[in-house]
C-alpha cells in the first residue's frame, strides 16, 4: 500500500519534471534505459515472488484461479469495447 502511493508520487514528480524541463534536459537513450529497467524490474519481481507459483502450478487452487483471471480479463476487455463504442 505504502509502496503504491510512493511510486504514485515518483510518477507525478517525474511527469511534472518531464513536462517542465523535458525539452531542455532530455534523458539520454530514455527508451533503451526504460527497456533495460523493465527487464530488471520483472527479474526482481520474480525474485520477490519466489518459485512457489511454479512448483504448485497444478494443484486444485490454480485451475480455479486461472478461470477467475481469464473471466476478469475477458469481461474487462468486453466492457472496454462496449463503453468505448458508446461513449468515446
Amino acid at each position, binding site marked *: 500500500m505504502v509502496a503504491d502511493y510512493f511510486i504514485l508520487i515518483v510518477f507525478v514528480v517525474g511527469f511534472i519534471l518531464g513536462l517542465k524541463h523535458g525539452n531542455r534536459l532530455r534523458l539520454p537513450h530514455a527508451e533503451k534505459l526504460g527497456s533495460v529497467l523493465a527487464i530488471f524490474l520483472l527479474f526482481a519481481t520474480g525474485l520477490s515472488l519466489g518459485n512457489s507459483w511454479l512448483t504448485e502450478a497444478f494443484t486444485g487452487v490454480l485451475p480455479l484461479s486461472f478461470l477467475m483471471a481469464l473471466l476478469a480479463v475477458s469481461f*474487462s476487455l468486453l*466492457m472496454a469495447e462496449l463503453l468505448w463504442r458508446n461513449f468515446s
Partner: protein
Amino acid sequence: MKLSIFPLILLCSFVMGSLLSPLSGLGNDSSSEIQLIALSVFIFVVSYDVGSKMRASSIRSIMKQTFILVISCIAGSAAAGILFAIAVNYGIKISLAIALGMGWYTFDGPALASYAGASYGAIAFFSNFFRELLTLLLYLPVSTFAGRIKPIAMGGATTMDTTLTVIRSSKEPVVTSLAFAHGALISFFVPLLVTLALI
C-alpha cells in the same frame, strides 16, 4: 530491440527471477526492497520521458478515456466475479472480493486470507497474479485487433507498474500515460471495493 521478442524477454526475465529466488539467499524483505527500488527508478524514467513528450492539451484529452477504462475494468471484474460465483458455486461476496482485487495480488491475497481463510486467500493471490501474467502475455496480441487503448482495461492495477513494461512498448506517450493513470486510479479503488464486497 524488436517489438515481437521484447515481451518474451520480459517473461523469461520474470521466470528466471522466480527460479533463481531460492538460490539468491535474499529474504522476502530484501527482494521486495530491490523490487521497489527497481520499480521507482523505472517509473521515474518512464514518467519523465512521457512528461517530456506530452502537451497540456493531450493531458486534458486522456481524462475521459481514463474514466471509460476505469469503469470498464471495475464493471468487467465485477461481472467476472458474479459469473465465477455462479459457475463454481462460491459465495457472491467472496467471488466479488477476489475479482475486484483487479491484479493487486499483494493486497487481495492477504485481505481474503484474513477474512475468509487461507484457501480463499490463495485463490485471490493466484487469480490476481494470473491476471497480471495474462495481461503480460495477451496485451500485444489483443492490441493488434482491439487497438492499443482498450486492452489496458485487462491489466487492472498492474498497468501502473509491471504490465506498463509491455504497454509502453507501443512507444506512444498517450497510451503510456493512459495506462499509468488507469492503474493509479484502480489502485486507489481496490481497497475500497474489496472492503465493500466483504461487508
